[in-house]
């Protein structure tokens, strides 16, 4: 059979192929990814977008958890101080109930209790990064203000709103308790109980029962504080979970898109060898024809 006398187009096509392969391998090695455009692997390209979405969500949940944790632990330690302060007030009440005290002693105690009252107001007005922690969703103004006209000695300017923050797919954590559930809960209002104790101390009447009132309000507040402990536990375990998920997402990303460096390097050197061979073939190509031998 007669062969095509011009092998050049075939050789050039082969050379072109090896050059394309070389370029692909070089790109793979330099980017570290074997999905550099959707056509490299359409399914992996699509999955990588969803993987990036998951990674972004995972990272933002983790960041939110960090913020929430700050809010929760500030609130929790504030409540711890509140408890200490209330214990002081209760001790003072027990002390004031002692019949041997003089009127001026009780006046001193009453003054001390008033000091505790302002301290309590200040604690209830604690803020974290500019947001008041105990005003419900009214976070821009201090929730409690002293008021002589109110029987509890304070007015609550917050609301009963509770914020929930998503910390996972379909998983929300409540991040605050409003002051109306903590300090000024109906039936267990620590401000009212404290103000009652101050009045009792000043008038020297029913000091013991006022002290008991404050004590039970204080117990109620302690029970409410458990919320923060629980929430912080949730934050902790969700953080652990998301950290694990982060590893999985990263592993998935690697399996979807990361170049196999060893293979890519081997392919590259093979393609380079092919390329050299093709070029060598072209360079040696029929520099001689029969004409050269007819002298």
């Amino acid at each position, binding site marked *: 059979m007669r062969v095509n006398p011009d092998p050049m187009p075939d050789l050039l096509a082969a050379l072109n192929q090896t050059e394309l392969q070389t370029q692909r391998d070089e790109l793979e090695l330099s980017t570290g990814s074997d999905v550099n*455009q959707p056509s490299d692997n359409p399914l992996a390209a699509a999955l990588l977008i969803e993987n990036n979405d998951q990674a972004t969500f995972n990272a933002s949940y983790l960041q939110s958890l960090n913020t929430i944790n700050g809010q929760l632990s500030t609130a929790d330690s504030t409540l711890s101080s509140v408890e200490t302060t209330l214990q002081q007030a209760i001790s003072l009440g027990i002390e004031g109930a002692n019949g041997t005290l003089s009127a001026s002693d009780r006046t001193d105690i009453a003054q001390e209790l008033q000091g505790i009252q302002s301290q309590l107001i200040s604690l209830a007005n604690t803020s974290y990064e500019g947001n008041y922690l105990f005003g419900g969703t009214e976070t821009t103004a201090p929730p409690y203000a002293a008021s002589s006209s109110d029987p509890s000695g304070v007015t609550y300017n917050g609301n009963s709103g509770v914020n929930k923050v998503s910390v996972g797919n379909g998983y929300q954590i409540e991040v605050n308790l409003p002051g109306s559930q903590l300090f000024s809960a109906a039936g267990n209002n620590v401000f009212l109980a404290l103000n009652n104790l101050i009045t009792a101390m000043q008038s020297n009447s029913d000091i013991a029962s006022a002290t008991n009132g404050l004590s039970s309000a204080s117990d109620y507040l302690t029970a409410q504080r458990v919320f923060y402990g629980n929430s912080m536990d949730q934050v902790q375990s969700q953080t652990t979970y998301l950290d694990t998920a982060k590893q999985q997402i990263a592993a998935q990303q690697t399996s979807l898109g990361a170049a196999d460096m060893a293979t890519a390097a081997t392919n590259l050197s093979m393609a380079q060898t092919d390329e050299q061979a093709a070029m060598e073939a072209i360079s040696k190509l029929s520099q001689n024809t029969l004409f050269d031998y007819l002298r």
Partner: protein
Amino acid sequence: MSGLFGTLSIALSGLSTSQQALETTSNNVANANTPGYSREVSVLEAGAPIVYGSVSMGTGVVLDQIESLRNPILEIQLNQQTQQQNSLSTQLTELQQIQTSFSSSTSGIGADISNFFNALQQLSPDPSNLALRQSVLTAAGNLATDFNTAANNLTTQQGNLNQSVIDDIGQVNTLTAQIANVDQQISQLQNANEDANTLVDQQTNLIRQLSALIDVQVISTGNGGIELTTSNGTALVTGSQSFALSTSLGPGGTEQVMSGSQDITSTITGGSLAGIIQIRDQQIPGILSQLDQLAAGFANAVNGANAQGYDLNGIKGGNIFTTPPAGGTGAATAMHVAITDPSLIAASSDGTSGSNGNVANLSAVANQSVANGETPINFYSNLVFQIGSTTSNTSADADASSQILQQLEDQRGSVSGVSLDEEAANMVQYQTAYQAAARVVSTVNGLLLDAVNLGIDTAQE
């Protein structure tokens, strides 16, 4: 018996045919690298014998014809494969350009969507924070800009393809006019019984060039005449007459290919024109419409969620994105953030500044069916999958087609290509034949002298 003069005439026929055969060889060598040239061979034939009784004497050699070696079936296959290959490679080039807008998983529309929801998530634990609100608006702005860019790139590419249609049609018309002109010359030569090999080569080559642009069918009308039509029968050349195609701006802003008053755009199935039209009229509008669907669905869902809540001033939320055009067409190009004041994001569900209740509604858009029953990120990743697989399939088809084309070229080369080795051998052969015939002439010359000088050995004087 014809005597010595007869022998002389036979030797002369040998001289002249050898010379003609050498000319053919020389022509082949000269055209060894001419595109579309088909090698020629001299077809020699023994002269008609003269019969004397029971003896017949040869009368030398004649050059019957110079044959151009060409396989017509192969030429048709080459035309068809050229049409397919050019359509596919044009599509591939354009698709590769399209997919650059969709090539990254960590930037572009997909990542922008993720980042928008990330910004919302950051706002959730601290809903009145203006800096965090601003970053939601910034993320929304990036998303809108990337939608605009992707859509504009596609529209620009479509505009460039429109220009390519005009350019290609111009080339088609030039080629058909040339083919008609060559056809006329061939007819004239063949009517005069002359050899039209070179012109046929030229015509074949022109038809090959035309095949790179448009699907063309060659119908032979006999005696060298041809008729060219597109595959759906639109006449391009009939004999010496060519019919120019034209372009006209269609209602959709695309240049339509016209044959007279007939729009043949959608019937073109081969050559770069088919590739251009496929991308311009099918692929790009398809992708644009999906981008529009996603942009409109996303903007409407986010606006709807924002309207459910209250902004930082306690007022019902308004639009975050400008309202997409009705029906969604053009939504990707028109997508724009409607507000610059970050306090207008309606994070609150009760009107208080510290409430984050409506952030959940805004974030929920991530899991809502915003377009075609899919969530934003799923819809987008499906789009990327489609673009990727179309490109990768086209690439595989184009590779296969170019390999077939290469094989056909090889086959054509094996039939029609000039081999210098072969020509060198032919040259030696005809040279030797010429020398031998010349020797016969010289011998006859000697014999004639002997005869004229009646035995005097003139040759040895």
